[in-house]
């Protein structure tokens, strides 16, 4: 019968855990939870704690004393013998992929005190800690590879299931990613980049008054106008009209983008999948694709009497070509062996299409969609400048004619921000659908 640890013992256990590599940087709260499942045990000098091939169902953290740790020869560790003192961790084989048995035998060479942690209980505990759990597992992996000189082939820890991978709500997952992002240098570099850009603008226009920059609106006047409750030229974040323009443009791009995706992806899949279809369609496709969107304007106006549909049509056209072309390239990029493997495993044509062609082309499809949303904005604004009412392109064009220079910049900056947001949304959707790829890239980045 092992009683729960008393208060003094619990503190001792936490201190011992903190001396062990996997738990070194863990938060106090997590250490307390781990200490709560730890059971103390003592072994006399010369006692064998466990032998190779025993069931690997608990992990030991050395509190005091000394043990000798000997790998069985098949493991292939560079150093088979290892002496351990306080802070040493052994018995972790159960954390490795595909292992259920001990890889080593361990003998106490002095009177030894340890903390025993049930492997499954520890894993369950770590799974309930979406932030720190994976970090602890990662430190286990590093320790096993470095301190125990185990070949990389063996030293792969299990993946925690639970919150992080399956049940974690999207909000907490986003928060987790956000906290990782804030810890990296990226956001700070980004701020510096913006500061440099705006600083140059300010100096060039307002301080140095460089030739060519002299006529441009300065950064301070633009920002003042943008944030003014009563703007001089009638457009700022306080005017309803500003949002009407944004909404109009976003709505047009959304229609164009979805229409282009709905048509472009299937056409691209067919182009890549069926040689005959490609022979019919591709030459036509390649002739139409290089025609600049502005060249379509007259035809669009003739075709659609309503300017609204003409504008959407122009934005759609550019997106459609980008999506269809990338989807086709995606299908053609799929390694022949995946299709052959599916054939071998007895899949029919439709199953190959559904399980190999579509997922295999997905990375290219999403590259295409990123480009597509970009060119959709590009051609939308061009179309809005030529014909149309409302919309950011319209704002820029009319402001130019009415000599409202700061408003031009407001329109441009708003386009930049909204455009960035939409393409980020496409990227997030892609990451969500291609978890396998996100994981693979995360591994290669390290």
């Amino acid at each position, binding site marked *: 019968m092992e009683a729960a640890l008393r208060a003094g013992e619990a503190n001792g256990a936490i201190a011992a855990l903190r001396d062990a590599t996997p738990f070194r940087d863990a938060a106090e709260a997590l250490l307390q939870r781990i200490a709560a499942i730890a059971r103390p045990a003592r072994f006399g000098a010369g006692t064998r704690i466990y032998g190779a091939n025993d069931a690997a169902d608990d992990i030991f953290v050395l509190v005091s004393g000394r043990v000798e740790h000997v790998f069985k020869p098949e493991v292939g560790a560079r150093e088979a013998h290892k002496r351990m003192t306080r802070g040493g961790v052994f018995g972790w084989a159960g954390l490795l992929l595909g292992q259920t048995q001990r890889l080593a035998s361990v003998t106490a060479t002095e009177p030894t005190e340890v903390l025993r942690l049930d492997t499954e209980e520890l894993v369950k505990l770590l799974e309930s800690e979406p932030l720190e759990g994976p970090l602890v597992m990662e430190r286990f992996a590093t320790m096993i590879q470095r301190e125990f000189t185990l070949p990389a082939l063996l030293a792969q820890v299990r993946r925690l299931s639970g919150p992080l991978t399956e049940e974690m709500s999207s909000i907490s997952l986003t928060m987790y990613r956000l906290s990782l992002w804030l810890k990296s240098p990226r956001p700070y570099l980004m701020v510096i980049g913006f500061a440099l850009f705006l600083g140059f603008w300010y100096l060039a226009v307002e301080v140095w008054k460089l030739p060519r920059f002299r006529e441009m609106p300065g950064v301070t006047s633009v920002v003042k106008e943008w944030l003014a409750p009563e703007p001089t030229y009638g457009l700022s974040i306080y005017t309803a009209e500003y949002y009407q323009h944004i909404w109009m443009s976003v709505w047009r791009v959304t229609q164009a983008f979805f229409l282009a995706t709905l048509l472009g992806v299937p056409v691209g899949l067919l182009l890549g999948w069926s040689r005959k279809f490609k022979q019919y369609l591709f030459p036509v496709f390649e002739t139409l694709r290089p025609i600049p969107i502005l060249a379509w304007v007259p035809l669009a106006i003739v075709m659609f009497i309503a300017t609204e549909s003409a504008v959407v049509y122009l934005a759609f056209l550019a997106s459609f070509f980008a999506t269809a072309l990338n989807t086709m390239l995606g299908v053609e990029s799929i390694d022949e062996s995946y299709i052959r493997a599916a054939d*071998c495993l007895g899949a029919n044509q439709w199953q190959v299409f559904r399980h190999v062609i579509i997922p295999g082309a997905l990375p290219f499809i999403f590259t295409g969609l990123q480009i597509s949303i970009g060119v959709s904005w590009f051609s939308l604004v061009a179309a809005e400048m030529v014909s149309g009412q409302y919309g950011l392109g319209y704002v820029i064009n009319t402001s130019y004619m009415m000599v409202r220079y700061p408003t031009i910049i407001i329109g441009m900056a708003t386009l930049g921000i909204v455009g960035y947001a939409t393409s980020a949304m496409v990227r997030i959707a892609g990451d969500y659908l291609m978890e396998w790829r996100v*994981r693979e890239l995360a591994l290669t980045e390290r």
Partner: protein
Amino acid sequence: MNRGHIVIDDVVKVYDPQGAAVLAVDHCSLEIEPGEICMIVGPSGCGKTTLLNAIAGFHEITSGRIVMDGEVLCSTEKPKSAPGPDRIVVFQNGALFPWKSNLENVIFGPVVQGKLARKDAIDKARAMLADAGLAGVERNYPGEVSSGMRRRVEIVRALMNDPKALLLDEPYRALDSLTKSVMHEALLEIYYKNKVTIFFITHDLEEAIFLGHRVAIMTTRPCKPKKILNVDIAHPRDYGVLTSKRFRELIEETNDAVHEEALKAFQAGEKEG
């Protein structure tokens, strides 16, 4: 058990018969016994993969025929067979679908064929993975585990279909030599549990002699057996075999033949270039 008997009978394969014809396989005959590990050794580009592709049903043959368990897979009249789950290929660079988890990959065959319900397939897959020392990898994507593990998962994916034969196309080529040695033992272990015919292509003579019941050393383009070696080392084998006297003798016996073909391939390559 008497399945997986493959007879390659006088097979010829000519590429591009209209233009400059290249003879890849020349009147090649070879019989592979049920449950045998038959190793095909030859230099890269000698035409051995062409032979495998013909058995698998990826390519047509020009003449001759290939018969498995009495069923004609392909012949002069019907030059290409349809690939199917009775003879499954394990590819050189691995062909686990990277977008499916290891478990989804393993259950793919029986589920698409409608042979097993998804749930039963999952149970069977878990048992087979555990049996191959791969418990715990189910949830991972192939890109997240080591290349050695990926190869083992791929072999398990093939065995899920209870095939008559496995066709392995230099599956361990890209692995480092340490991993390779572990993989050889793992393959033998899987083979001892599931006796299937194994048609294994390699250019590594030691690998061939260590694994195979018989080793067919092929001539380089056109490809046909030059010498067939019976490896009289008893199965089950383990890594001790590599240092045994008989193993060394067998290497010596065949090394010249292999080297000669490698040299021919090398010189042919020089002429073409």
